């Protein structure tokens, strides 16, 4: 109970400190905004993405499946995607796992029949399935956006047809021209360079047949990176406050009250944890509001990942502090570790390209595991099942560092 009161006191103190607030919130949001804009520009300058290996599994015998196939094979998209067709969805998915494909699009059997309204205007719901390579970041987004554009066009055609009182047989004439234009439209965007593609991605509505989703934007890469990077900083700084309390004698005063030392230590570490939790949550909310970032679709996965990321970061901060000679040393080491972890762990650039020793070093950072988890949720829209390894690693790192820090602090302060 007293531990909680100490934690709340620490959190309150931190949120009243303008300098701390600037580091916790202003810096990550401003830098993300800058990187986000730069990313948009960079996309135009760099080599365009070409020949994304994609497989279409069209099990639908109707005109809608044909519509997808027509657009995807249209000459306008030929340089962007290298499309193959297959009949076995499982075999196709296995090729993603093998690293041969970036995406598999599956149009289920009976899709047209289900979705197109019958003579009474009734229709069912069916989904086009899109499987993407979880290790790739940009190409799945492009494929997804193309599929969503087609889906959106089909949706509006169906809607238009319904309004006009069309019968099932009458959709084909409507679909033909709509799809023809679509291929050309996407192709034209590509002609004018990737920049336009990126910008159009920003505005794209994700609509799968029968349901509406959210929109994607490139900030989804950078906001989690910056949030994790600045979280580390604030967790190291928060952890050092126990040494500051020793210097100001408030720690000694705490220890002169009838409060067990372990509870004081737990309170101090809990305060850092609570601060980090609030910091991260506020960063998530404000980035959603300011930049329209989507933090994915799995609230449970996100909540667990955030809690464990903060747990691991604050535990590491506490451990570094506990084993530092003094406040100064803790500060220097903390800043160095934050920077190195940020660079290696994917806070500034994606880590999919890393191999060998660098990749191993990257995997020794808290940032890497946190980023793997966040990107799985934000960019790849995965769920809890896709972040099992990151959350397990973060939980272990957090637990071990918390225990070690507690023991070291106990030894340090009980004189």
């Amino acid at each position, binding site marked *: 109970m007293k531990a909680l009161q100490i934690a709340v*006191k620490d959190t*309150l*103190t931190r949120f*009243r400190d303008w300098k701390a607030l600037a580091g916790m919130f202003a810096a990550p949001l401003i830098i993300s905004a800058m990187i986000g804009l730069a990313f948009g520009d960079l996309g135009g300058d760099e080599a365009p993405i070409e020949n994304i290996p994609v497989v279409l599994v069209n099990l639908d015998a109707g005109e809608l499946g044909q519509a997808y196939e027509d657009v995807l094979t249209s000459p306008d998209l030929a340089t962007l995607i290298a499309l193959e067709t297959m009949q076995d969805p499982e075999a196709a998915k296995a090729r993603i796992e093998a690293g041969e494909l970036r995406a598999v699009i599956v149009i289920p059997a009976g899709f047209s029949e289900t979705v197109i309204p019958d003579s009474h205007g009734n229709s069912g719901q069916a989904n086009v399935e899109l499987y993407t390579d979880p290790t790739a970041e940009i190409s799945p987004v492009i494929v997804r956006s193309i599929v969503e554009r087609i889906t959106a066009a089909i949706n509006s055609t169906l809607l238009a047809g319904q309004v006009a009182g069309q019968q099932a047989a009458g959709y084909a004439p409507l679909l033909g021209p709509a799809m023809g234009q679509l291929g050309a439209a996407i192709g034209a965007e590509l002609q004018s360079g990737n920049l336009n593609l990126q910008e159009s991605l920003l505005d794209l509505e994700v609509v799968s047949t029968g349901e509406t989703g959210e929109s994607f934007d490139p900030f989804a890469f950078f906001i989690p990176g910056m949030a994790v990077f600045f979280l580390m900083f604030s967790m190291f700084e928060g952890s050092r406050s126990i040494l500051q309390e020793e210097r*100001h004698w408030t720690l*000694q005063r705490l220890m*002169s*009250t*009838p409060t067990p030392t372990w509870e004081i230590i737990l309170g101090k570490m809990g305060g850092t944890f609570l601060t980090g939790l609030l910091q991260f949550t506020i960063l998530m909310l404000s980035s959603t509001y300011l930049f329209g970032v989507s933090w994915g679709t799995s609230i449970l996965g996100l909540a667990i990942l955030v809690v464990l990321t903060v747990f691991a970061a604050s535990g590491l901060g506490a451990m570094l502090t506990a084993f530092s000679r003094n406040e100064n040393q803790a500060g220097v080491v903390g800043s160095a570790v934050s920077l190195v972890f940020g660079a290696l762990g994917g806070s500034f650039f994606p880590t999919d390209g890393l191999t060998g020793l660098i990749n191993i070093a990257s995997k020794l950072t808290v940032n890497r595991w946190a980023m793997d988890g966040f990107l799985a949720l934000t960019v790849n829209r995965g769920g809890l099942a896709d972040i099992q390894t990151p959350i397990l690693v973060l939980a272990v790192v957090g637990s071990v560092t918390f225990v070690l820090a507690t023991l070291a602090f106990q030894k340090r302060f009980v*004189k």
Partner: protein
Amino acid sequence: MSNPILQAQNLHKRYEKVHAVQGISFDIQQGEIFSLLGPNGAGKTTTISMLSCLLSATEGDAVIDGHSVRTQADAVKRVIGVVPQEIALYPDLTARENLMFWGKMYSLSGAHLKQRVAETLEIAGLSDRANEKVETYSGGMKRRINIAVGLLHEPKVLFMDEPTVGIDPQSRRRILDTVLELNQRGLTVLYTTHYMEEAAELSRRIGIVDHGKLIALGTQDDLTKLVGESDTVRIGISGVNDTDALLAALTKLSGVDHAALEEDELVLQATNANAHLSQIISAIGAASGQVKSIKVAEPNLEAVFLHLTGRALRD
């Protein structure tokens, strides 16, 4: 008469290189203000830290209200209030928030906590500024809140470690009055200071510490008797080149027991000083010095310290 609420028994604290406290023993009676008087580095804070269970004693023990600091720390912590030498407060929090927080650390809660916070703010005389951040307070106001925290849980014994350091005379007066008033209401106080006037005003019994040892202990009368009948003479001088020779010459004069130099002031212990002043002045003249001022004082604790250690209390 003998009803000690605190008994320090042969307390030692050894650090790697320093033997900071070297066997200090004393009793404090219920309801008294007991002062430990000593210069910087004497071991006052180390002693108080052992008594408040912050530091474990290398040797010895203390019993406070029947509880051993060695084995019953938790019980000891409930009966003592601690006012550290440092201002141990959170500057980002208001005075009220500080008091509320520290009250919770003493397991106070609810209406009782609020009442105690109001009462201690009253004692500190800061009720009207309770909602301002402590960082905006003057040094004297911070000191008063620092004391208020130590009173929250209505301790039986209050440890005050140099509570008037670094503040203006008015604030110091206020704090001394507060200590006297709290004592009148029954609070036992252990007070440390390097100002002999504070020890003299507050306490009947005083312990003098130096280099980790209690070099004298008793009532003021007991202590001043140690110096005999000698008076303290303070002479402001200038122009003396060889001060060591002058000090040597002065100690040779009949009636002069001790001579020391504090900046540009000579501090002498002399029996029946007024009768020897002319000799003293001519000795200064002989050392080509000029006399700027002369003060003669009856025996006091300053003199006791000088007598016992050969050094002035504040060097």
